[in-house]
């Protein structure tokens, strides 16, 4: 994960001036860089982001309910040749229903999003073949916490826009947040519980925790 984080940060670094207006580069700015992308699909779909894996276009779901970046083979993309059965990187993952499923850790030469390349990205190849597609892109997998937790991520599903902000740890600039949110907004703390995110809520006065933010029905 640290390698992945370093690689992503390296790819993002230095791009702020291309997108983020100069006045945001103030002394107390918490934002290092940002990348925007147009979401694919519609309102009933889990958010889908266009990516390129080894220069081949594909779509990946986005969800905080998954830990790694999981992919499946599709008619136009096959990762089998990247699998080394003898490697320690062959193992099992637990699916949504807690059942063990064989999986392989694979490394791809390039993983691109928003026009920027991340070299030697680690993905987890699941069994089975994906047959879904959206707007001409094969939908081959899902991006989880290993990627998303490195950023402040702005989701505007209705406007089909997603923005990844590389932000400084322990930094909060209310003016920047107001500018990003673009209107009256609400705030709530997030607790990290075993790498998953929790948000406190009250239903009719009873306090409880929504233990993840899966962005999934």
């Amino acid at each position, binding site marked *: 994960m640290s390698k992945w984080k370093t690689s992503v940060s390296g790819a993002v670094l230095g791009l702020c001036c291309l997108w983020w207006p100069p006045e945001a580069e103030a002394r107390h700015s918490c934002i290092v860089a940002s990348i925007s992308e147009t979401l694919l*699909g*519609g*309102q*009933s*779909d*889990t*958010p889908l982001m266009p990516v390129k894996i080894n220069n081949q276009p594909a779509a990946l*779901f986005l969800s905080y*309910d998954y830990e790694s970046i*999981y992919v499946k083979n599709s008619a136009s993309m096959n990762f089998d040749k990247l699998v080394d059965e003898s490697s320690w990187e062959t193992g099992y993952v637990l699916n*949504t*229903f807690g059942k063990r499923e064989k999986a392989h850790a694979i490394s791809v030469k390039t993983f691109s999003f928003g026009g920027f390349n991340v070299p030697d990205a680690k993905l987890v190849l699941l069994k089975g073949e994906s047959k*879904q597609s959206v707007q001409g892109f094969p*939908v081959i*997998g*899902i991006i989880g*916490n290993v990627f*998303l937790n*490195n*950023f*402040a*991520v702005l*989701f*505007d599903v*209705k*406007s*089909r826009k997603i923005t990844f*902000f590389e*932000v400084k*740890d*322990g*930094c*909060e600039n209310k003016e920047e*947040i107001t500018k*990003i*949110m673009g209107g*009256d*907004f*609400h*705030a*709530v*703390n*997030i607790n*990290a519980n075993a790498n998953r*995110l929790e*948000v406190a*809520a*009250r*239903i*009719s006065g009873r306090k*409880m*925790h*929504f*233990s*993840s*933010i*899966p*962005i*999934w*029905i």
Partner: protein
Amino acid sequence: MPVGWLADYHIPLVKKDEKSEVRFNLNEGYISNIATVENLTIGDDTEKNRKIKVADKIYEGSLGLDFFADKVVLVDAVNSRMYFRKSDGVSQDPGHNLHFETSKNANIDVK
């Protein structure tokens, strides 16, 4: 959220006998009922008469697409904060019910 939370937390419902939705994930089906609660408070925001999906085969509550669909949401996992507001965006096409776990939905009436 888990249907058991309604009893565990003594949550009163505004409406009874609401439509249910049957979901099938990886060939395992479950029924999620729609429950309208008096209010849902997250941070300093309270929504009254909020519809929530409750199901019997889940064990955690979660903020799903129903929450995100009409909002602008900034999830800052680095600094452990989430910000949200209603979106000004224009509704997009309804989509194709695409999710990572292959699923299909059907609505049924509960007698």
